[in-house]
């Protein structure tokens, strides 16, 4: 789901930077007003978790691989605004140091996995968990459903951004300039593998960690 350099044309990657920047600004503004210094280690661990969980490539036999992002889990534990920044930092380090995701695509990848992924997952979690107590099953169930929705939304957004390239960017004789696969190929290829496999892995990881905190460290879910 890390779009590399060269797959998105300037119109798309420029737009995605422009769309994501206000969210980074809003998150900074929000955190500047609410964050306490003692939370810093937890935010650092949240970002580190997102980085390392994305190193676990999950295979489809004889096919492609995918991975969890941890967006929903991190949002539940440190709040959505902090999670937005944490996942973004992981994605930016992956792009700069490891070439995992393009530099031009940082705006797009951060929007898909950090902005949309975090808010979709956290929103679903809040709706399902409601006012349920820390030990309630609705907490981990909500987080699991949120995680499933979150990863699938991130995947769908990625697929659509890739799939519109042949329409947006082509030579006068119709040859694609950037990602050459049309929506009819990109969307099923990316969406189905997340709907049937990777989304469930994201949900399971999220539910297991929330269950761990419910048993051993309920203050984390306070």
């Amino acid at each position: 789901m890390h779009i590399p350099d060269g797959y998105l044309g300037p119109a798309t990657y420029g737009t995605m930077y422009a769309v994501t920047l206000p969210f980074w600004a809003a998150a900074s503004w929000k955190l500047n007003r609410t964050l306490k210094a003692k939370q810093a280690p937890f935010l650092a661990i949240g970002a580190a978790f997102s980085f390392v969980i994305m190193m676990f490539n999950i295979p489809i036999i004889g096919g492609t691989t995918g991975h969890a992002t941890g967006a929903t889990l991190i949002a539940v534990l440190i709040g959505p605004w902090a999670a937005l920044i944490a996942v973004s930092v992981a994605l930016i380090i992956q792009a700069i140091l490891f070439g995992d995701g393009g530099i031009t695509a940082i705006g797009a990848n951060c929007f898909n996995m950090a902005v949309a992924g975090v808010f979709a997952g956290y929103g679903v979690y809040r709706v399902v968990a409601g006012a349920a107590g820390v030990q309630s099953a609705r907490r981990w169930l909500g987080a699991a459903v949120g995680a499933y929705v979150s990863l699938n939304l991130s995947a769908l957004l990625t697929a659509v951004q890739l799939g519109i390239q042949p329409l947006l960017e082509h030579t006068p004789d119709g040859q694609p300039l950037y990602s050459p696969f049309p929506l009819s190929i990109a969307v099923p290829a990316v969406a189905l593998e997340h709907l049937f496999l990777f989304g469930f892995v994201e949900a399971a990881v999220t539910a297991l960690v929330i269950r761990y905190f419910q048993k051993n460290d309920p203050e984390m879910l306070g």
Partner: protein
Amino acid sequence: MSTVRRLWIAIGILALLSPLGVIVPKWLGAGGAWGEWGTDEIRTIMGYVPAGMKRLADRWKAPLPDYALPGQSSGLLGESLGYVLAGVIGIAFTAGAMYILTKLLTRKDRTDRSDRT
């Protein structure tokens, strides 16, 4: 043991296990992620490399491409060790950057005031 220390141990265990994220896909014959192919693979799939893609694809030279260390030995052990070390480097940069960002965003005077109330 403090929660922070336990969570860091968990991150460390994940880093040590991370080569599974490369070894298992290889065993099961799975390639990379869909739509993350390099220009060579695109040429194999499409028969050509789109002009704009060719122009942008390799403009940025990442210091540790594909989570591999320069000069790591080939084979399962060397590649796994390289992946773990790349992971540790990435975790250190990510956590460090996030920690510094958080510190910049927390204004001390404000924190002190809210802690007292």
